[in-house]
């Protein structure tokens, strides 16, 4: 099946095109086409995985060159796919979670008139995301990268008749553009340094390149990763992206697309391995984002925005791990995988809650839903236990490893990075428990017009499947370091290093902090009454509620000066450049008009033009030759 892996991209892509072209006549059944396409992609991926498991660990990377883009030229660009343990892991995550969410969406979007278009975009996303992770060169990866950006834009703004949703889509698009420039610059530098942008050549030549080159490339890649994965300082779009339908938030803005940045860093391991400074920046960005996300999550009352903040924070963990080098790569991907399950599950749970509560998102008007929505409560609860990192649930196995790895090193680094990771775990426990208790426990604070009920099986079954994953996937993968060994051919073998604090102590500390966080949340939001409107709050709360004034900061630091700059430029442009250009354009137009006059419509003048031309050319060549 590995040689057929291109089908996993082609089938959803064809389905997306079909659904868009088919028009209204496919409205009644189009969504099932989308579901089938996504399932087919999953089956292809599963086949490839089984084939890979039958091979030796050393031979598990297969490059599949589909075609040469432009043969016989210096621009040596092939369109090829790389199937190796890292990419197949992503393929499985994307297609498995993606297919579940396709099923879920059939019910969730049932009453939407544009459901067919929604599935077309979802399929487009699956195809683009698979292209991103399967590409064997940065250029092809970039196509996938832009493709998921496009799908994300279309889906965030899916309900673009609401003005603020359309704005949110634009914001996501613009912020992502900044990151994309990083990827383009990185490709340019690779082409200059190595003469190629395919993984094989770049990674083979990276060890010989100078540290400065690698650092520059690494930082450009980090910029790209920050944009796509909503990492500091390009994090501002993710919260607004919750404007999209909830299945989109689950698939794109929690489980898969936002983790593409982590994929990019881990995939580029040979570059980062030669650039310790770039690695350190990656780790620091991760640490900042994980704390920032956690603080924001503590203050949000909108259930989706709280989950979005949590996503940001969890990806911060992954970035931190990816910045630690070979000891962290495998754990970054491990956490990405378990996070994909439990966060997607919780988003679907949030969608189920919203369905029951007339699309309300304010947790202050939820409460006591565990009685009426048992399945949602249980599945969400398993996701909650997983993200808290309670053993033996999935999150424990992956997050704890990251915290341990963060404490490895010398000097100030382990203390700062490890400390951030440790504190982050406590904060996570607090805000996730707050979210959980406010929604499912305490007293019912429902508005008068809602009558909560459990969702249909089409929605609950995917939630149950994901909950099972949230519960047991980590244990399964961690047993005997199964997953770490699986990834070893890509991420490299990491020597075992002892953290600066003994491992049992770290585990004990983490669990203690988690329990304290959860307990505090229980006291404040489980047992005590939650006010229906948000209290004024301290300065810290207000800061966090407003996303650390990220929009204000962006406005003050980038937008305002940018606007002033552009205004000045526009003025200068109008006065000086445009003056020149307009005059010149007038000149061109006048030239055009003049040469139009030559086109008199009279054959004799045409013939005269030809004759003059021939005589002139012949004279010059003959005389020049003499």
């Amino acid at each position: 099946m590995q040689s057929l892996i291109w089908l996993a991209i082609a089938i959803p892509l064809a389905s997306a095109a079909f659904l868009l072209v088919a028009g209204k006549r496919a409205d009644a059944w189009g969504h099932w086409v989308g579901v089938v396409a996504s399932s087919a992609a999953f089956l292809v991926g599963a086949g490839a995985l089984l084939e890979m498991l039958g091979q030796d660990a050393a031979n598990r990377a297969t490059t599949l060159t589909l075609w040469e883009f432009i043969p016989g030229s210096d621009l040596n660009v092939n369109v090829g796919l790389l199937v190796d343990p890292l990419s197949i892991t992503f393929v499985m995550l994307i297609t498995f979670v993606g297919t579940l969410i396709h099923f879920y969406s059939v019910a969730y979007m049932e009453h939407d008139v544009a459901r067919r278009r929604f599935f077309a975009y979802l399929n487009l996303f699956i195809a683009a995301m698979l292209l991103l992770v399967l590409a064997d060169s940065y250029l092809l990866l970039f196509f996938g990268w832009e493709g998921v950006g496009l799908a994300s834009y279309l889906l965030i703004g899916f309900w673009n008749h609401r003005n603020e949703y359309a704005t949110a889509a634009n914001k996501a698009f613009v912020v992502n553009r900044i990151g994309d420039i990083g990827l383009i610059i990185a490709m340019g530098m690779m082409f200059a340094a190595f003469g190629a942008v395919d993984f094989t050549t770049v990674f083979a030549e990276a060890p010989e390149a100078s540290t400065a080159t690698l650092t520059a490339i690494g930082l450009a890649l980090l910029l790209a990763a920050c944009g796509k994965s909503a990492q500091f300082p390009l994090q501002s779009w993710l919260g607004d992206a919750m404007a999209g339908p909830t299945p989109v938030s689950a698939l794109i803005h929690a489980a898969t697309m936002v983790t593409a940045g982590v994929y990019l860093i881990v995939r580029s391991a040979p570059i980062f391995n030669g650039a310790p400074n770039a690695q350190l920046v990656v780790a620091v960005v991760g640490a900042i984002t994980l704390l920032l996300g956690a603080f924001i999550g503590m203050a949000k009352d909108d259930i989706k925005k709280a989950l979005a903040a949590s996503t940001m924070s969890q990806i911060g963990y992954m970035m931190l791990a990816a910045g630690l080098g070979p000891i962290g790569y495998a754990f970054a991907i491990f956490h990405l995988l378990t996070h994909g399950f439990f966060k997607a599950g919780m988003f679907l749970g949030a969608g189920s809650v919203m369905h029951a509560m007339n699309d309300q998102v304010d947790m202050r008007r939820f409460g006591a839903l565990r009685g009426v929505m048992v399945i949602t409560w249980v599945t969400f609860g398993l996701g909650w236990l997983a993200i808290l990192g309670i053993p033996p649930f999935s999150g424990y196995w992956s997050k704890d490893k990251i915290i341990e790895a963060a404490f490895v090193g010398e000097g100030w680094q382990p203390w700062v990075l490890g400390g951030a990771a440790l504190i982050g775990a406590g904060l996570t426990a607090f805000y996730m428990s707050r979210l959980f208790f406010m929604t499912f426990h305490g007293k019912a604070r429902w508005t008068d017009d809602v009558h909560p009920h459990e969702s249909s099986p089409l929605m609950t079954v995917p939630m149950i499947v994901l909950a099972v994953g949230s519960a047991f996937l980590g244990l399964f993968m961690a047993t005997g370091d199964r997953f770490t060994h699986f990834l070893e051919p890509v991420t490299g073998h990491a020597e075992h290093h002892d953290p600066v604090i003994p491992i049992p102590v770290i585990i004990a500390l983490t669990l203690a902090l988690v329990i304290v966080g959860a307990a505090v949340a229980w006291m404040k939001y489980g047992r005590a009454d939650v006010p229906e409107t948000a209290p004024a709050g301290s300065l810290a709360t207000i800061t966090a509620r407003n996303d650390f004034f990220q929009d204000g900061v962006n406005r003050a630091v980038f937008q305002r000066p940018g606007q002033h700059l552009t205004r000045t430029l526009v003025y200068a442009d109008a006065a000086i450049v445009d003056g020149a250009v307009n005059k010149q354009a007038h000149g061109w137009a006048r030239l055009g008009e003049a040469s139009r006059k030559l086109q008199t419509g009279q054959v004799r003048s045409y013939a005269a033009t030809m004759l003059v031309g021939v005589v002139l050319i012949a004279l010059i060549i003959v005389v020049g030759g003499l």
Partner: protein
Amino acid sequence: MNFVTPEIAWAPLTPILIVLGAAAAAVLIEAFIKTPATRRLVQLTVTIGALAVALGMVVVQWVGLGDSAGTVVMTGKITVDAQSLAWQAMLLVFGILAALLFAARTADGEESFTSLGSVPPGSTEERLARRAGLQVTEVYALLLFAVGGMMLFTCITDLIFLFVALELFSLPLYIMVALARRRRLLSQEAALKYFLLGAFSSAIYLFGAALVYGSTTQIDMESIGIAIDFIPSNDAMLLAGAVMVVVGLMFKIGAVPFHSWVPDVYQGAPTPVTAFMGAATKAAATAALVRVMYLAFYPLEWELSWMFWAVAIASMVVGTVVALVQTDVKRMLAYSAVAHAGFILVAFAGLTPEALTALPFYLLTYGLATIGSFAVISQVRERAEDGGVAAEAVRLGQWAGLGRRSPLLAGAMALFLLSFAGIPLTAGFIGKFEVFSAAVAGGAWPLVLIAVLASAVAAFFYVRLIVLMFFTDVPEGAQDTVAVENDLLTRIVIIVTAAATVLLGIVPSGVLNVLQDAAVFLVSAG
């Protein structure tokens, strides 16, 4: 003096003979089938059948070629080699697509061609002929003659014989240009201009061939190439002759300053004929120019390079600049064709082997986009006072808001325009890339720099039409004055050309690899 019967290896000529034979048969069909409707159907079937069979034969020959470069059909006269087979296949594809466009009709059953070519426009006789249901089905025979002549044009290695083939495909074109159903005066004027200027350029060509003969005492290209080595390269007669021969071919390509006919003819000719001419004439003329330059005049490469540079730059600049101020879609594309003639000539810089792959590929991508875009133009019509469909809506303003009314048609047009502009992921990008890299390989990077700048400026007027179609609101009441036709044959052509434009933009390697094998000329043992 005894006359030796020439030895002719007929077999490689089969595709050309099929096409010309079908053309002769088509003339007979005109004479023997009386009912116009039946005649049209038979003519269309014979035309497409003959072109398709010929295409099949070309492919069979190509496969049978194996490692050999080709066959000398007639020493010093005709050589069928891989390069000429590639051009022949391309011309046949263009011919089939054009035949489909020729047969297209509006919803009211109106064809692109007049009912009776021999009567004055607007006369009573014309009205009567239309009422009687007459049709000028001779266009199919003319198309076959033109395609046959063009195919022959690509494999001739003799300057005088080349002239015969030139006239063989030009004469049918002159007639076809005059046969427009609507705006016939414009059409007849265009035909007359084309004929007169064509005759003028033929004269220049012949004069040039005579001068070359006078200087080298040879008329077949290979012998000329050998003979040039033995005469001083500043021989005035030789240089003047070479310039004039090249000018005769540049006229057909439509390069500045031999381009004056292009806008008038593109505008006046029936749109299917414009589509065919735009694609096929340029391809055939380029094929012949390649052969003349690579076989005969390559020792003069340095002397003639000045001419190629000047004409290429002039074509790109004039074509682009004048296209900026056009208000008629067909004229705008005509000037774009002039600019593209410049891009084609860029590849001749240095006479590199790369150009032998780049040029056929470029002409293929350009031809497909040309046929597709003129097919789209033929579908956008003015609506007459009585509600019927009238002539094509060619004023730019009439295209406003087309994207909203007919998204697929406008989308296809946008695709062709982007391909003309050379935007990545369309065939035009790969074509430009190939042509420019061939020129760079020939050391002509300043020329390439100008070409890149010219294509950047040219993007402006292509994109302007796209903006007009998709982002401009339709003026009040304008909806009713423009009608969008929905003819099946034309739609097929549009779909095929659009699909090919996308495929060649994303997966060009298959065709490029085939054309790399075509980058050989067979040089006879002599």
